[in-house]
């Protein structure tokens, strides 16, 4: 597939938009359909597309396997870390009201809390999808 000009240019043009769209889906998840899970999958799909068109090596130069594996673990740490942070601030585990900058509007903390844990979900799902894809695709190349 490396000789197909239309596919190569198409993928190159589309990929930034897909990545931007994933971020939009994540940060706008409070107001419209979307959230960490969907954003992570879309972000993973963007890199899978690039890897399919340009080859695994090119993508792994940008996004090495150790990095995505670390991402998968980091997401869980972010999620659990938000819980620990709210505990340190004197609320329940994952009690987001602790994160409000102004205590008289405690529900604003919910907003930050949700964005942060969804970020954790995003990072984990992205890391998992890309690393699983790397493993499957890497195997296929080795077998041939």
């Amino acid at each position, binding site marked *: 597939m490396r000789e197909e000009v239309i596919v190569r240019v198409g993928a190159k043009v589309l990929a930034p938009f897909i990545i931007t769209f994933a971020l939009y*889906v994540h940060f706008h*998840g*409070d*107001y*419209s*359909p*979307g*959230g960490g*899970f*969907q954003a992570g*999958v*879309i972000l*993973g*799909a963007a890199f*899978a597309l690039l890897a*399919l068109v340009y080859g695994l090596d090119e993508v792994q130069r940008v996004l090495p396997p150790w990095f995505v*594996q670390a991402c*998968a*673990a980091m*997401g*869980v740490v972010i*999620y*659990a870390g938000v*819980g620990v942070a709210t505990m340190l601030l004197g609320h329940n585990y*994952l009690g*987001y009201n602790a994160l409000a900058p102004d205590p008289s509007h405690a*529900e*604003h903390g*919910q*907003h930050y*809390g*949700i964005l942060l*844990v*969804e970020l*954790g*979900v995003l990072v*984990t*799902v992205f*890391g*998992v*999808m890309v*690393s*699983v*894809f790397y*493993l*499957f*695709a890497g*195997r*296929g190349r*080795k*077998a041939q």
Partner: protein
Amino acid sequence: MLLTLLAATGLGLLRIRNLFAVVMLAGVYSLLSAGLFTVMDAVDVAFTEAAVGAGISTVLFLGAMALCGHHESRPGHTPLLPLFVVCLTGIALVYGTMDMPPFGGADNPVHHHVADHYIEESYHEIGIPNVVTSVLASYRGYDTMGETTVVFAAAVGVMILLIGARTRRERPGGEGGDG
């Protein structure tokens, strides 16, 4: 009707032996079910299903299929016993639906436990309009954390299965066979 199309796709999946066609049809099936979810007002779910089912999972299936061969051999045993089991289970389940409340009724029991609270109070308590997000990340925050951990654990499982094997196979005298 989308549901009828889905049923037809399901039958196609059953009949076709070429795995490439099966995987493509599974993608179509996912996309159809995403359409169904949209009709059923579950826009978040439809979004996820379209991204996961028709995108990533098709790619993963194709990757696995490239390693495992494209054609399925004819099953050796007679299909009568499985067919019998399946029909029996199906009849039992259909009998079970006779007691189910009619589709779409606003006073079905499922809508009267915590759902009312989520819809009426979540804007004051959480402050964001998308109820699905506020339930997902706040009311059921522990649950979602567990799900995230499961996804991570699954990835670790795949890594153990596929990375660990490679090093053992390269060792001389290792017992891993060639593919």
